[in-house]
């Protein structure tokens, strides 16, 4: 039983150690491995921490700035997981936690993460919704509009392809000179006008409690 409990943690530790070996100075590798252990113990994904350490080394960043950046990523993953756990009785998947962490890095808040997660359903996974929201925020769409646009697209039953295409549409509008906020406002109006019938039991505010 103990082996079953420890197996994922040992695997994660081994994976982090393997990925860091030879590419990261030993002192940084040891510190990142310790952070990775802490992350795994809290049910958080480890790969983003290792990625950030590798990125810092490859970009030639001084060692004393790499660990704070890794800790920032860990904090974002932690905040993302907390926000997601508050909206569902089932533990969030690594992909959703990572997407939430990215959305936080892009400027959204834990409250925004929770609001988007609540609107996710079987057709629109939490991870994809958060990825879209993060991309919109990274493009400069204001927070409230980002959340409103993603929630509206989901709640009006737009296909997941339409949801995924939102950042591209905003980008296209921006290429024609529209500010991000105006581009998103136009898309939200269009999404609101598209009131497709939803399957029974998936009405507004009734997110799937078993979403990943």
């Amino acid at each position, binding site marked *: 039983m103990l082996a079953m409990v420890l197996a994922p943690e040992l695997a994660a530790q081994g994976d982090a150690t393997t*990925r860091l070996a030879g*590419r990261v100075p030993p002192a940084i590798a040891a510190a990142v491995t310790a952070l990775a252990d802490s992350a795994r113990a809290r049910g958080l994904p480890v*790969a*983003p921490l290792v*990625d*950030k350490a*590798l*990125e*810092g080394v*490859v*970009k030639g*960043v001084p060692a004393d*700035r790499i660990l*704070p*950046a890794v800790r*920032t*990523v860990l904090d974002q993953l932690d905040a993302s997981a907390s926000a997601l756990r508050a909206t569902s009785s089932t533990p969030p998947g690594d*992909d959703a936690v*990572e*997407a939430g962490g*990215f959305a936080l*890095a*892009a400027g959204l808040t834990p409250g925004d993460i929770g609001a988007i997660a609540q609107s996710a359903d079987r057709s629109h996974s939490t991870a*994809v919704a958060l*990825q*879209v929201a*993060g*991309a*919109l925020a*990274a*493009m400069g769409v204001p927070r409230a509009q980002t959340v409103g646009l993603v929630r509206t697209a989901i709640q009006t039953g737009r*296909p*997941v*392809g339409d949801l*995924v*295409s939102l*950042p*591209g549409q905003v*980008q296209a509008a921006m290429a024609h000179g529209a500010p991000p906020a105006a581009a998103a406002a136009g898309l939200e109006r269009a999404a609101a006008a598209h009131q497709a019938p939803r399957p029974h039991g998936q009405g507004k505010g009734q997110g799937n409690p078993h979403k990943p």
Partner: protein
Amino acid sequence: MSQELDLPPSLRAEVEAARRQVSLSPELEARVMATVRVRAASPQHRAWRWITAPSLPPWALLAAAAAALLAFVLLRPASVGSPGVASPLATAVGPESIYVRFILVAPNAREVALAGTFNGWDPTAAPLARADSAGTWTVTVALPVGQHQYAFVVDGRRWLPDPAAPAVDDGFGRKNSVVSVSAEQRRIL
């Protein structure tokens, strides 16, 4: 006239009848024209005219078809390890992955590479090829479904975000670009 002479007698009456001018009553003409105007102004009719109007030259349609074909080729799922998948990233991707083409215009660059979370930020894993004399560099890589951060490495030392993609702070004072690949629709954010 000579055509009339060639007509068989049985058809001459039909031709004469067809030549007689038909006059409609003013009321009927008004009703018909009113109906035509209403139908022409309807949203459905305007949408149909927009769809069917020959507003694009033939070469544009050919270009669109070529672009659709290219998109199909680039966005089809990659089967890892199958013949023809020569990407150096092929061994690192899962069964659900999508070919994505990256483009950077850097006329003065001697070499350009793509590094990101999908290749461990290895600046040697995905070099771009110079596509033309204008300095367009491209590379096509198979990305696993999910969200990835990346940047271009120009001449081995300059890290540049992709000007055509959303970007986030990298935590080190620079920007990383972001690409997301969705399994459901095989679309790129």
